């Protein structure tokens, strides 16, 4: 395929440009014979039956890509015993692994007609256990990124691979010959075979040295472990075993810290409660930024970054019988709980200060957690970066002692605090090569750019945790004339080898021998490929660190807390460190806490804003301690932000990432400071008001729940009590924990107080006639206790249902299109009071946070259905509230009358419209569209369909085998993408389904409907939230 003039035919008609095709190509509905042919503009719309419309749309999208499917299918083994060749309209599933630097997730890739269109979790992996994150699911769109390079470049000009190879090879050899230094700057490498390839490279060029750089470095832990265990590695954490107490000092392990998917999955296990199991872990969080983890904690204490050392030290002394510092609320309680839960607790910190981590090691050792919740012998490979080596490398470049540098999977000119220094001196390096997939900040400074494949186009493997191997297999042949980084490196060593064979050989030599289950390698290989993973059983083993705690503590205490305003640089769940910044899904993904999209900003505490007279959206100048450079950012008033601190997200302000990312927000990597060799993600700053304002695009602007009952919660203490009413709150306790049960006064047929449950009231004697008895009733139960608010479901839904991206301005206009949103509420001091509405709007300084996934509730007395004049939204026999898009005339009455405000209107045409130049505006980006789901036209209403297309598929598969669909066979996009299994989808008429069983137990327990009192009778139930504070 010649990348630059790549062309996909939408079928033969386009190939020979038939006029009929050209006429129809932009029609919502291609023409059909119609009653009103004489009205030209209406016939293209009204003359079509729904099915034809779906068929045609499906086809025109699907056909777009038939060109792009050959090679990988030949070699791969489809997941669910599917035939190896592609049958149109039938999805093929491949097990693979998402690997992005040190981030890892074992995934299943759904391909349609040879196009990867969706990424889901792989349950066979014991590491991620079928979990996925928003970023992982969004990565499928990055594959179809138009900004990716279409071939190799030399000094910005296209060059053939062979020429590039010969030139590079000769230069490298020349350099090696004269003993010039060659540096291979890479991200963390999870892949053992890639490591082997690099080893080959370095052995061919003895002067070559690998430098591993992590944007989000965990150097502190690595160095501390180096000292304590003589292992430069991360331990494997097991939150499932930390069933009693978890203390995190700044580590956002549910959101962004090291391996959030893995940890979230484990964490949730100890947070789920039920009538049977009325116990859960208690979670203390000490942090500056209100992180996703902090918002799920039972006790959250705000501290300055400069206090981290003090907290850790104080905790250590408290655990040793000393007394915890009074400056930190709940520290004493935490210590007490920890001592009571030896071996069932876990203390983690994200500090990059080696000494702090040493103390943390000491604490966990003291609590006997090594061997149970922490295992250093089974190491995690997620972070291998060496800050010392990187700064040494930059020094060398500056000194002119580096002759060749290869950047592989890193973009230091964007992401390193010393970027400007490096950039200034990079011209001293005679040969600069980048393997980046685009002409990014670093690549654009290089002589050669040899673009790497997307992971969905590549063969590779990964060893996230020692002994747990997983494979990366391509699910589509290369879209452009790119080449895997490993193949490039090998090519320059002189070996012309396909990395597929290389990986296979590596496994034959190194992995196959480690097992005994399979006799022949083929069997073994096919199995591994089918499962996506191959795991060796390793028992956790204890180990005693040797830490000089006192030295560490004294080192800590030497760094005293400052009175200046401290700034914290943190990662957002969506954008992270900006590797996928050019992915519009990621950019429009609302931050779980601030609900902000398309920007970064300065989050300031409420108190600070009050005293400095700052308002939301005021633009301020940031002058950082360690830099002369100044940036301007809008202010976001953030409840829960520690006093004396502000925070700014990393990963924004890309300049050469592409349309979606360029100049979105500001880059704060240059202000990341260093302590010793380690990168420290905080600094001090002074803010000055500029007088300008820039509106932050938030999907939710009202902060509090106004004392309403759509979220219901209780404490574990109340939950374990006997049934009854709590005298203080008046709430029901015991099994009905925190429930609010509305009752309506009725004339007759009421209970003792003359009241009746809303959902038992109806003015209709008979129900709508339904020709036959309903076969299923689909529904959902959402456990507010396990929902951590990560937003994985939002992207899962967006990918599954072709939800358009609308851009910053439209989000500001409150017109984002996400079908599922996660409502986030802060507690307010006036919560329990009657009236006091003005106060209720004000969140607390350090609020309790609750997340509530909200999508169409599929009401069985749906207000939207009643008011639609044209019957475009009606109720299905299976309890679904269904939208008939092409019947909709767009009165928006349904949206107005929806009490949950979950309906979304197509204000504009969001596809093929230059006003919305995102993935739906170019043929490549459109390849990600799901052919099973209509792309909605301008002027129509849309909303969550409970993934009706998945339900239909499941039912058809069952029908083919003449059986009922089994429970779990059909999953909605949101339920499958939930890393904590908070969403249970199923058939409420099937007594064996999880949902029926769950509801049977919880009907008289935690299950409730939002807005039960208005009797719309939803099919979605929620389980009230249980918190576990120390009483």
């Amino acid at each position, binding site marked *: 395929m010649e990348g630059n003039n790549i062309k996909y035919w939408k079928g033969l008609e386009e190939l020979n440009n038939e006029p009929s095709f050209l006429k129809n190509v932009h029609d919502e509905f291609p023409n059909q014979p119609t009653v009103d042919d004489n009205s030209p503009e209406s016939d293209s719309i009204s003359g079509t039956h729904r099915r034809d419309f779906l068929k045609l749309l499906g086809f025109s999208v699907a056909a777009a890509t038939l060109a792009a499917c050959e090679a990988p299918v030949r070699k791969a083994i489809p997941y669910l015993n599917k035939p190896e060749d592609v049958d149109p309209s039938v999805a093929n599933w491949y097990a693979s692994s998402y690997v992005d630097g040190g981030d890892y997730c074992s995934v299943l890739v759904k391909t349609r007609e040879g196009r990867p269109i969706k990424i889901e979790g792989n349950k066979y992996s014991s590491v991620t256990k079928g979990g996925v994150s928003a970023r992982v699911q969004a990565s499928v769109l990055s594959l179809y990124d138009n900004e990716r390079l279409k071939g190799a470049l030399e000094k910005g000009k296209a060059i053939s691979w062979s020429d590039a190879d010969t030139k590079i090879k000769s230069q490298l050899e020349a350099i090696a010959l004269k003993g010039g230094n060659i540096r291979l700057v890479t991200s963390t490498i999870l892949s053992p075979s890639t490591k082997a390839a690099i080893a080959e490279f370095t052995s061919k060029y003895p002067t070559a040295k690998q430098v591993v750089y992590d944007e989000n470095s965990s150097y502190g832990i690595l160095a501390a472990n180096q000292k304590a265990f003589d292992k430069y590695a991360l331990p494997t954490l097991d939150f499932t075993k930390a069933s009693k107490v978890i203390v995190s000092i700044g580590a956002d392990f549910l959101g962004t810290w090291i391996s959030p998917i893995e940890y979230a999955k484990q964490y949730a296990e100890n947070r789920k409660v039920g009538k049977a199991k009325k116990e859960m872990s208690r979670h203390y969080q000490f942090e500056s930024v209100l992180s996703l983890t902090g918002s799920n904690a039972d006790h959250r204490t705000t501290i300055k970054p400069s206090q981290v050392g003090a907290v850790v030290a104080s905790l250590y002394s408290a655990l040793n019988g000393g007394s915890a510092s009074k400056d930190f609320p709940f520290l004493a309680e935490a210590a007490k709980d920890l001592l009571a839960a030896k071996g069932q607790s876990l203390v983690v910190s994200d500090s990059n200060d080696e000494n702090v981590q040493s103390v943390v090691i000491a604490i966990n050792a003291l609590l006997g957690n090594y061997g149970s919740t922490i295992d250093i012998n089974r190491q995690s490979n997620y972070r291998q970066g060496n800050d010392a080596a990187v700064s040494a490398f930059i020094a060398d470049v500056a000194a002119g002692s580096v002759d060749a540098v290869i950047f592989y999977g890193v973009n230091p000119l964007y992401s390193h605090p010393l970027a400007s220094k490096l950039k200034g001196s990079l011209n001293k390096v005679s040969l600069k090569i980048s393997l980046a997939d685009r002409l990014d900040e670093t690549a654009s400074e290089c002589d050669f750019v040899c673009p790497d494949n997307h992971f969905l186009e590549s063969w590779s493997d990964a060893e996230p945790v020692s002994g747990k191997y997983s494979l990366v297999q391509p699910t589509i042949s290369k879209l452009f004339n790119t080449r895997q980084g490993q193949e490039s490196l090998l090519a320059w060593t002189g070996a012309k080898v396909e990395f597929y064979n290389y990986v296979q050989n590596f496994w034959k030599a190194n992995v196959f021998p480690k097992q005994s289950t399979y006799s022949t390698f083929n069997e073994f290989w096919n199995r591994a490929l089918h499962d996506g993973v191959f795991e060796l059983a390793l028992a956790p083993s204890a180990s005693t660190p040797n830490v000089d705690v006192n030295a560490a503590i004294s080192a800590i205490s030497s760094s005293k807390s400052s009175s200046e305003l401290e700034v914290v640089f943190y990662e957002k769940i969506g954008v992270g460190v900006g590797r996928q910044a050019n992915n519009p899904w990621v950019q429009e993904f609302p931050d779980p806490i601030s609900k902000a999209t398309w920007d970064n900003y300065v989050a300031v505490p409420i108190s600070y804003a009050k005293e400095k007279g700052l308002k939301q959206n005021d633009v301020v100048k940031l002058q950082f301690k360690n830099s002369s450079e100044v940036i301007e950012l809008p202010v976001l008033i953030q409840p829960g932000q520690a006093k004396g601190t502000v925070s700014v997200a990393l990963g924004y302000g890309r300049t050469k990432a592409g349309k979606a990312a360029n100049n979105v927000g500001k880059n704060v990597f240059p202000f990341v400071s260093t302590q010793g060799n380690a990168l420290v993600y905080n600094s001090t700053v002074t803010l000055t008001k500029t007088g300008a304002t820039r509106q932050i695009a938030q999907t939710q602007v009202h902060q509090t729940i106004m004392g309403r009952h*759509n979220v219901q919660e209780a404490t574990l203490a109340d939950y374990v009590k006997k049934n009854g009413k709590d005298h203080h709150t008046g709430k029901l306790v015991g099994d009905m924990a925190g429930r609010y049960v509305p009752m309506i006064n009725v004339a007759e047929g009421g209970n003792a107080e003359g009241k009746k449950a809303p959902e038992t009231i109806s003015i209709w004697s008979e129900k709508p006639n339904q020709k036959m008895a309903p076969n299923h009733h689909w529904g959902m139960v959402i456990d507010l206790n396990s929902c951590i608010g990560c937003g994985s479901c939002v992207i899962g839904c967006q990918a599954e249902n072709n939800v358009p991206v609308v851009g910053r301005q439209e989000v500001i206009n409150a017109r984002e299109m996400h079908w599922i949103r996660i*409502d986030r509420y802060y507690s307010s001091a006036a919560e329990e009071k009657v009236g006091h509405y003005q106060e209720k709007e004000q969140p607390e300084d350090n609020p309790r946070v609750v997340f509530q996934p909200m999508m169409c509730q599929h009401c069985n007395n749906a207000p939207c259905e009643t008011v639609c004049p044209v019957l475009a939204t009606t109720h299905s026999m299976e309890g679904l509230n269904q939208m008939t898009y092409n019947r909709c005339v767009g009165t928006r009455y349904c949206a107005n009358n929806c009490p949950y405000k979950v309906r979304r209107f197509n*204000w504009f045409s969001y596809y093929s419209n230059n006003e919305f130049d995102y993935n739906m505006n170019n043929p490549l980006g459109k390849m990600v569209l799901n052919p099973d789901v209509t792309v909605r036209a*301008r002027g129509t209403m849309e909303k969550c369909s409970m993934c009706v297309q998945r339900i239909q598929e499941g039912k058809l598969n069952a029908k083919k085998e003449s059986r009922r669909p089994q429970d779990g066979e059909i999953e909605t996009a949101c339920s499958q993408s939930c890393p904590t299994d908070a969403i249970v989808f199923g058939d409420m008429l099937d007594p064996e389904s999880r949902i029926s069983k769950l509801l049977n137990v919880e009907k008289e327990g935690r299950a409730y409907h939002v807005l039960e009192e208005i009797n*719309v009778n939803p099919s979605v139930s929620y389980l009230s939230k249980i918190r576990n504070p120390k009483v």
Partner: protein
Amino acid sequence: MHISSAVREPLVTGGKSYGDVTYDIVRHVENKPTKLWFIVMGFSLVLLSLGGFSLYKTWTIGIGAWGLNKTVGWAWDITNFVWWVGIGHAGTLISAVLLLFRQKWRTAVNRAAEAMTIFAVFCAGSFILMHMGRTWLAHWALPLPNTYGSLWVNFNSPLVWDVFAISTYLSVSLVFWYIGMVPDLATIRDRATKPLTKAIYGAFSLGWTGGAKHWQRYEAVSLILAAISTPLVLSVHTIVSMDFATSVIPGWHTTIFPPYFVAGAIFSGFAMVLTLLLVTRKVYKLEHYITMTHIETMNKIVMLTGSVVGVAYITEFFMAWYSGVEYEQYCFLNRMFGPYWWAYWSMMACNVFSPQLLWFKSIRRNLVATFTLSIIVNIGMWFERFVIIVSSLHRDYIPSSWRDFSPTIYDVGDYIFTFGLFFTLFFLFAKYLPVVNMAEVKSVLKSSTDKPSHKSH
């Protein structure tokens, strides 16, 4: 049978004869348009074209051109719709209800009022079309046989009720108006000198001669039309109010809406009639036909309906408090003190407080005061609909979705379009059709005029 009490002031002053009546009215049709007419007509045409452009943009860009959002799905569009429909109530009400009540004073004003009604309903209708996401499919709201299988419309939906109510109202009003005009058109025909004029008015006057037999049937017909138009006119705004009353949204879900909306409609309708008549009266020197008595009577009705509306507002609040429903209670407090407090208080000032001035006879009989008040009332009634729609929607059940609404230039432009449409039509009517129902005026002339005389021209 002549029902008129001597104490009443005459409805037609200046001792007019039948001939004078004909002359005073028809001359405006026969003479060349005045300079003033050209000016006002030009002005309305400018509005029409400006608005037309804005409308064109709205339809090419998409409804997104307006300031609406995921939470506030209706704002200016439906506000304007309800506002125009409300205005469109006075005409039929005057001619129908007052005919049944044998209110003779109506004769001077009903023609113009009905015309206004019809044009207002046109404007309202244009918003029904405008607010649709896919206007080109508007006909889907009708129960038409179609190629989609037997897919009909949803008779549970108040919007479908609207479609039937508005179209029935419009067509029946048109018929009523036209039938009422036939004899006058015949008069113009018979006086016409130019053949073309004669032909046109001849065709529209349906060969009316004024024979006793025809008059007999004609009277019966107009009486029955009046009889059925009365419930019709009441039904229209009742049904419009059901768009809100049948929903679940706090602030909409209110059973007093039908009477409350009808009162409001009459209120704004009469205000608009006053606004227009005071102008017409001045321009066409019709002081003898549209007398102070007329103006005062209408002012009294404005005052009454204004107070009814005021009571309705208070009742709403009482119900919100008495119901004990937290959402209702918050909704109404939010109206008063929330982000849209200014809209709420403008509404109260214009609709409830200002009409109370009309208790004073001096103000009721003061042209300037009446004119100003009539405009204030219409502003107030616009705010009433805005408050009901936007302030209820923008903060309903789930706080996470609470958002504010602010209009765009296209919201304004499309509103301007309807003004252009309305005035253009009205001035055309004023020029080419008899603005006062001559036949009816003549029929009450004897009974009501001071010192009848038979002198003719």
